[in-house]
């Protein structure tokens, strides 16, 4: 199946299909917020005022993607979000606690449900077709992607709008910092991956894709295969999963031109990637991506966008800092893991 179009709002200048990471944004601090577009072009001004940031980001990224695909009404809309609409959830929860369950307004509650973004996209398009929302931590995007791929395979859809959205809020950032996820000082900016320490940096994003059964003139790449595995026992189990994934996809390690991996600069997290680079992935050019988008459960959607762009442009941006020189740019393997428990593999190839 083909990746026909993308729309990506991220902490980088990714929106609007400009040059790929030509001048990467070097964020200060441990919180990489998205660079948001002017929403007026994508959303009714009256609605913009009512929508929270994550809804605006999701709807705009989806609109951009559909526009590129020249698609009015996708056969299905599938979203993934781990945290959901945190800002509205926090607003309603905060007021409920402060006002002791009295005099509450419904808007924040209405927009707090995890399916809000997919629903708002459907509403904007007047799209009555299949609509689903996956909310499973580091598998949220991968589950949405699997649903989309199956819909295409089953023939129930010829094209699917699929994407992932997650936002950072002040509350979530404070809580996850207290849980020890993020570096408290020495914010490394774009050097995140080369200065391993305890903790990573927070990220967020809204990345959408149109997947289609049939090729088109605008295709970025082919999405060949997807696999997730949960809480593997150790390095051997991980290698076994990767080996099985590649053999089921009919691909040898030698066929992989570039690996995009999910290291995040946290000493406690990156061991597995370092070990793989000296074993299974030895001699395969490898690069990380979380220095650009930060760590969040649906960061793999940013990686898929990055791989798609690299294959479409047939060029690797210098900022990616790849170890080694790819001989060709035909196949990219994305290997992400979130919190060491949620592992995912995506195989993407040039059209």
């Amino acid at each position, binding site marked *: 199946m083909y990746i026909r179009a993308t729309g990506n709002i991220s902490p980088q200048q990714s929106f609007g299909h400009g040059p790929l990471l030509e001048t990467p944004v070097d964020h200060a601090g441990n919180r990489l917020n998205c660079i948001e577009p002017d929403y007026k072009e994508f959303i009714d001004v009256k609605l913009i005022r009512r929508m929270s940031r994550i809804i605006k980001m999701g709807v705009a990224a989806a609109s951009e993607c559909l526009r590129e695909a020249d698609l009015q009404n996708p056969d299905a*809309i599938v979203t993934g979000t*781990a*945290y*959901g609409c945190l800002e509205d*959830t926090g607003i*309603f*929860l*905060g007021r*409920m*606690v*402060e006002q*002791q*369950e*009295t005099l*509450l*307004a*419904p808007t924040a*509650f*209405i*927009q*707090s*449900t*995890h*399916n*809000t973004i*997919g*629903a*708002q996209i*459907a*509403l904007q*398009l*007047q*799209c*009555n*077709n*299949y*609509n*689903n*929302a*996956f*909310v*499973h*931590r580091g*598998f*949220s995007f991968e*589950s949405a992607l699997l*649903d989309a791929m*199956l819909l295409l*395979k*089953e*023939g129930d859809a010829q094209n699917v709008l699929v994407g992932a959205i997650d936002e950072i809020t002040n*509350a979530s950032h*404070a*809580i996850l910092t*207290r*849980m020890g996820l993020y570096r408290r000082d020495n914010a490394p900016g774009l050097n995140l991956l080369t200065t391993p320490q305890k903790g990573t940096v927070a990220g967020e994003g809204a990345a959408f894709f149109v997947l289609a059964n049939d090729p088109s003139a605008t295709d970025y790449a082919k999405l060949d295969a997807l696999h*997730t595995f*949960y*809480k593997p026992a150790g390095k051997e189990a991980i290698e076994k999963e990767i080996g099985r994934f590649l053999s089921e996809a009919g691909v040898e390690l030698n066929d992989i031109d570039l690996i995009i991996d999910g290291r995040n600069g946290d000493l406690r997290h990156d061991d597995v990637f370092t070990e793989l680079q000296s074993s299974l992935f030895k001699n395969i050019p490898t690069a990380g991506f979380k220095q650009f988008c930060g760590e969040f459960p649906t960061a793999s959607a940013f990686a898929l966008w990055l791989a798609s762009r690299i294959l479409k442009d047939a060029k690797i941006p210098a900022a990616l800092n790849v170890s080694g020189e790819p001989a060709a740019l035909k196949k990219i393997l994305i290997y992400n893991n979130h919190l060491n428990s949620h592992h995912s593999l995506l195989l993407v190839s040039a059209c």
Partner: protein
Amino acid sequence: MSAPVFIAGTGAISAIGYSTAACLAALKNEAAGIGEMHYLDSVHRNELPVAEVKLSNEELSALSGLAPHISRTAQLGTIAAKEALANAGIHDVAQWRTGFISANSVGGMDKSENFYKAFLPDPSKGRLRDVVNHECGTVTEIVADQLGIKDYITTISTACSSSANSIFFAARLIRNNILDVVVAGGADALTKFTLNGFNTLMILDSEYCKPFDENRKGLNLGEGAGYVVLVSEKVAATLQANPSVKLSGYCNANDAYHQTASSPDGTGSYLAMSGALKRAGLQPADINYINLHGTGTQNNDIAEGTAIKRLFEPHFPKMSSTKTFTGHTLGACGGIEAVFSILSIHNGIVYPNLRLETPMSALPFTPETKLVTGLDIKHVLSNSFGFGGNCSSLIFSKV
């Protein structure tokens, strides 16, 4: 792609019982579970009736094996999902490619509410253990880890249609030969967040709900969990008890009308029901019973009813809303009502739509008001419609 997907087992916990058998007994006895609020600590305690599972977190903990401070949603989910696997006679999940597809609407919100009280005035305060399971997916994983399932785990959250979609997705994973066995459904505990949210929308009835009554005033919230074990033909053949029900149809559509309200003509509901019939290769007249979404709000019941009229007239199947027993369990209702739909086939019965006095004047049909027994129920349609226009219908059929 059209390989049969069998139902090998069920598990349910709700305000009317803590197991499938207990729920069935209450359904037969017309014993509704709605009442005064005892376990949820809300200022609306005396104004809004709810359908609580009448067990404290400590008592639930004794049944689930989880620590009492773990989210009530995970407690309910664990109890029902364990029952479903035991009922299916599957004792070793490692024997098959086994998945757990769950659903909920607000994850561990029941604990996050407590956390926020201390956190809001001072972000360095609040016990992290109360917020660590906030995410919907975390609640699913607590249950999956209890079941020992790890081959495939995910969570769906499409408001009130969440667990219908999890059963739907599970069936497709089996049909696509990705999994052999899937425990699928959903769980939701009552929370102040949801209670107050629905209250701001002014769709909660201060009395016991009256779905499909001309004078209906709104819904009562409930809590619980419901799971079914779906298996492939290959697995079914190895089970001691031959499955007698299969999931024959399913469809998901979007109403695309309003974030919370249904379109007056029930476009999404119509598309979901007609799509499920098409998938199952059935005609409307083949359906013997519709387990209605039937929340009791003005809006849902007229939209759902109008869509049923359009699709089924003049041959209306028997119908009822079991939310008159369990309240509206949100992310769990598709799972719980799937269990009730399967029991309807097993037992040849249709449950009463309690408290129905004045049928809706706009509709040419009336749901059953008394328990009907001795029926040959071959096909049951189960509806789950939610916020965001998410509408899903499932069809369960006698094998």
